[in-house]
């Protein structure tokens, strides 16, 4: 069964450093998403991406964040200058169409020191 994959599974970084989280969505899916879950809190929407552009973003997704689909298979989330409060589990998801089931990857646990 096709699945969403994410790398790395864990990343530790120093405050102020740039990180890139990588995702490979399900191959025929057209919509891509990033969510995050701070420890002990709700899963929160960050951004959705379709047709090579952002279709919606939350207030959390400020200028420090960017997303890219550099090729036909990868979908990345970049945090330019990490803060302590960026420590969270980051989930990538994809769906075939906009109003369809989103399938989630296993997540990347980011720890900012």
């Amino acid at each position, binding site marked *: 069964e096709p699945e969403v994959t994410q790398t790395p599974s864990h990343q530790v970084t120093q405050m102020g450093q740039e990180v890139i989280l990588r995702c490979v969505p399900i191959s025929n899916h057209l*919509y891509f*998403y990033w969510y995050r879950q701070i420890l002990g809190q709700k899963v929160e*929407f960050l951004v959705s991406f379709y047709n090579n552009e952002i279709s919606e973003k939350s207030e959390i997704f400020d200028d420090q964040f960017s997303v890219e689909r550099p090729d036909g298979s990868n979908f990345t989330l970049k945090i330019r200058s990490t803060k302590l409060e960026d420590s969270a589990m980051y*989930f990538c998801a994809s769906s075939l169409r*906009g*109003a369809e089931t*989103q399938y*989630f990857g296993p*997540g990347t646990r980011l720890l900012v020191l």
Partner: protein
Amino acid sequence: AQSVTQPDIHITVSEGASLELRCNYSYGATPYLFWYVQSPGQGLQLLLKYFSGDTLVQGIKGFEAEFKRSQSSFNLRKPSVHWSDAAEYFCAVGAAGAAGNKLTFGGGTRVLVKP
């Protein structure tokens, strides 16, 4: 704005007993509703979804959920719990028909299964 409330933060249930997890949503139009399960250290696995039609939906692992528009609820049930059902369960609402379909999650209910 859409929102989801899961009133129970923790539930403890004996193995073999029935389980019901509550979910209330707020959304101005027809919602898409989902239940996801997260085992420790794992990602989010879809249990079931409601888009339209029959208000009682069946999912994987023997779970079912019932959409009640009048109560704005989408409660998850399982008749007989197994030890492997110990996990955190998330209810989510999406915007039907909207491009992008942002999901809004509830706070989750952590289920502990006693032997």
